[in-house]
């Protein structure tokens, strides 16, 4: 039930966005999101509704967190 995929917004019309996933397109409702959405934004979409706007820069934060725990690698 958690299936939600990051998609890129290619158009916004009212509370519906057209989103792109690897060249295929789908619709996502935006009324479940507390912020406005622009073309080019990344969204997390579940069952046709956007549940989160993603910041591509956060991916770097993820890698930083990985690095942090893995620096403990092998330590007792």
């Amino acid at each position, binding site marked *: 039930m*958690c299936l939600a995929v990051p998609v890129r917004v290619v158009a916004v019309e009212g509370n519906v966005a057209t989103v792109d996933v690897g060249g295929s397109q789908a619709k996502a409702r935006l009324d*479940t999101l507390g912020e406005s959405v622009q073309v080019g934004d990344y969204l997390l979409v*579940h*069952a046709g509704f956007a549940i989160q706007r993603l910041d591509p820069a956060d991916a770097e934060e993820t890698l930083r*967190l990985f690095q942090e725990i893995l620096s403990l*690698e092998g330590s007792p």
Partner: protein
Amino acid sequence: MKEIFSLRDPVWAERFRRFLQSFPSENLVKIVHVCGTHEITIAQHGLRSFLPEKVEVLEGPGCPVCVTSTQDLDCALQVAERGTILCTFGDMTRVPGSRMTLEEARAEGADVRVVLSAADAVETARRNPEKPVVFFAVGFETTAPGTAAVLLDTPPDNFFVLVSHKLIPPALAALLSEDPREISGFLAPGHVSTVIGAGAYRPLAEEFRVPIVVAGFEPLDILFGLSLILRQLREGRAEVENAYPRAVTEEGNLRAQELFREVFRVGPAIWRGIGEIPNSGFYLREEFRDHDAQKEFGVVGRVGEEKPPGCRCAEVLMAKALPTDCPLYEKVCTPLTPVGPCMVGAEGACNIWYRYSGRPRL
């Protein structure tokens, strides 16, 4: 999103493997997740092969289709048999009620349709104004905002909802209240957490002294989440940690929470295989009675749960048994001939283990 695909990087994965393998494990460590999509990522990418022998990852009640009660299904069947168009998600149609499945009802003439979204069900209602269209709404906090959104968006008069949405934190509390408790840590579902926020688990971690780590769905997200749990266990900590900060905040998606608070109230719910869990179900508020299928059609589910003889789904759902511990698994119970709920839904533990060969010795 390009970054996401690097979250399958085998070099990082190998480093996580070494980290996980360095965990000193004398006693069995049971980590439970409650999300079918976590289980699918784990199975699809062979992540169990990264874990030390003594660390077991189990799927608890993470498949909303599987835990939907016979009662709720009986209601859906009754509604479907009254000349309505019944819309629901994919494999919900294959879950047995006390008499039959929705798929079987369709074969007997009921109009049962599969939708991918609550919005599609509303669309169906708009296109068929002469017929009542009922959305059988299942799913956790991830899905409930969508149902709430369409109800707040002035749906047509012929649109009704049969609500069977459930909440995750009360289910975790139920699992942790078991005595003796065997669960060492929880991998909390990423997208439920996107909506409810990592903070929602803090009271649980504190009350039950258990590590809870919110994790995403890419292979490295899960390896990271498992690593954080093992580190907490090693250090004797029991906290909530967020291993999925790119999609989960402390307070969650406030707009989505606002939506479901406005539309639903919380009450007890019956989980198939588990029984009643207090405060774990969403119910439509009085203001939405005009769209309440239960009121409109006066349907009531049959009370009482029948457990198929020999089936150990209840223990699988409570993370007390692996699918392979069940005598029916693979022998009489398969995805084509499911006996228990965990084999029925595509996100049920038994179903996923059958399709991806759960923990093969490779």
